[in-house]
């Protein structure tokens, strides 16, 4: 088996008496989509924040490509190749789609120290941004202001912006959130094609999407991983059913 691209080692995070993350070790292998599911309050977002660096774990470590990035800032981890998307779209709403996409390329190329050149007339920046937009199907909206995009298009742009970093791994926090059936299906198709580019750690509530996409699934309950396994295994595990999936499946 190949080495994991991304791995956490015994992550622990307590908020007072609450164990938000309880000894979580999870890994992401090349080419796979690894879904993390769990009921509300299970600590999924807390886990993502620790992986991406916006929250400091009490103990435990995070590895990206075998390098310990536990001490690195969010921006350093992003440059090292963590492409993150947010549950609630975090976009520069007043800017155009292209300007948002170019932002990622600026970050990846350390271009923010350029004060003179015109960002939108620099092919090294815009070509890569346009390629990412092409990929997520937003190329024809490149001049649209983000505020005028539909919810679904914003979700696509979130993914597109992560792509501009040419990431080693994607971390996606509920990319399907708020999407209708059609939008959810389109995004599922998009993510399906992305796994060859970089593996995806997918936190998601939409079970149809999870079972359609995930190679492996980890179940997080009260901050603890209670099961990790292939999609089918998890679906049939009685412990998981009891804890999370309930009667409906």
């Amino acid at each position, binding site marked *: 088996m190949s080495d994991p691209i991304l791995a956490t080692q015994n992550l622990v995070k307590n908020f007072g008496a609450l164990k938000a993350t309880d000894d979580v070790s999870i890994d992401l292998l090349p080419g796979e989509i690894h879904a993390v599911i769990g009921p509300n309050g299970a600590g999924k977002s807390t886990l993502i924040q620790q992986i*991406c660096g*916006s929250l400091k774990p009490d103990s435990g470590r995070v590895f990206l490509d075998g390098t310990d990035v536990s001490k690195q*800032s*969010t*921006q*350093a981890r*992003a*440059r090292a190749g963590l492409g*993150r998307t*947010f549950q609630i779209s*975090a*976009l*520069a*709403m*007043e*800017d155009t789609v292209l*300007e*948002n996409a*170019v*932002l*990622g390329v*600026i*970050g*990846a190329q350390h*271009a*923010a*120290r*350029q*004060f*003179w*050149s*015109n*960002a*939108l007339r*620099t092919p090294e*920046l815009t070509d890569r941004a346009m390629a990412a937009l092409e990929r997520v199907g937003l190329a024809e909206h490149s001049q649209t*202001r983000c505020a005028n995009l539909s919810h679904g298009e914003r979700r696509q742009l979130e993914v597109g*912006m992560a792509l*501009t*970093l040419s990431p080693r791994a994607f971390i996606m926090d509920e990319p399907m959130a708020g999407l209708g059936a059609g939008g959810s299906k389109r995004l599922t198709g998009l993510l399906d094609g992305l796994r060859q580019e970089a593996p995806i750690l997918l936190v998601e509530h939409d079970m149809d999407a999870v079972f359609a996409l995930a190679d492996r699934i980890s179940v997080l309950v009260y901050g603890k991983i209670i099961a990790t396994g292939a999609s089918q295994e998890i679906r049939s595990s009685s412990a998981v059913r009891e804890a999370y999936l309930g009667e409906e499946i």
Partner: protein
Amino acid sequence: MKLDERVINGLMIVGLLALPLWAVVVDEPFTITLVTRAVILALAAVGLNIILGFGGMVSFGHAAFFGIGGYAMGILAYHAQTYTALDLGFASFGGTKTMPLIWLTAMVFSALVALLIGLLSLRTSGVYFIMITLAFGQMFFYFAISWSQYGGEDGLSIYIRNDFPGLNTLVPIQFFAICFTVLCVVLFLVARLRASPFGLALNAARQSTIRVETMGMDPMRLKLVAFVLSGAVTGLAGALFADLNRFVSPSMFSWQMSGELIVLIIIGGVGRLMGPVVGACVFVALEHFLGGLTDFWHIYLGVILLCIVLFARGGLLGLLTGKEGAHV
């Protein structure tokens, strides 16, 4: 009425140039002084607009840089005109009356102070940022008041305007030409800055800090760089303002001064290249015409400001271009 913003910007520049030239023809030197004042206040506000408009940081202490620029001019020229040594402890020299040197000093000191203030205040945001910058501004104000060596509360008079190589700065139109050129150069640089990768990132940092971090950039550093540039520009304006009046006093450090700079930007249009210029022209015009009628002309300014905040978030430029919102 919807006009292209670039057309309005061009007209503004042409107007700013034409009015003093006309004043030369009809021999109205005071009009030239008035326009020069507008140009210098515009420059100060252009500096503030870099952080307030593009970076979303409402500094209520920008008078600190305006004052530092003013005192840089005052102190250097004071020593030159009194033939006394400016003793820095490790070195001493006789001051200078040369504008480019004064400008350089003003910008370097403003930038250094901006670096320090920025490092401390950018940890906060929102109301706390406003308050901490105000506090720094007030510190400079009270320091200037108690600095008796340079006039304390009474300020410092510089008898003859400083020199610019090849020009006679005592002729109003020539001094205007200097200020106008400086403004145009700075506007050009700021326009480049806004469209640059740095400008794009700064503008995004205003809208979503976490987004910029996720894209691999440090929003704090972007804001700090913007803060330093902003301080340097406002400091340069301060040096010119002191030269215009041939007088420096602690009032350049006052919080009213900081407030006025913010008001100029809001009147013209927040985050717009020429917003501060439009605002400064309107402000100086009101000050002159209404100020001639009543001492309480600020009431009318307040009404105008209220109307703009309530009905035209994009300022006068937003109103003219038909783009209502700020920034966009």
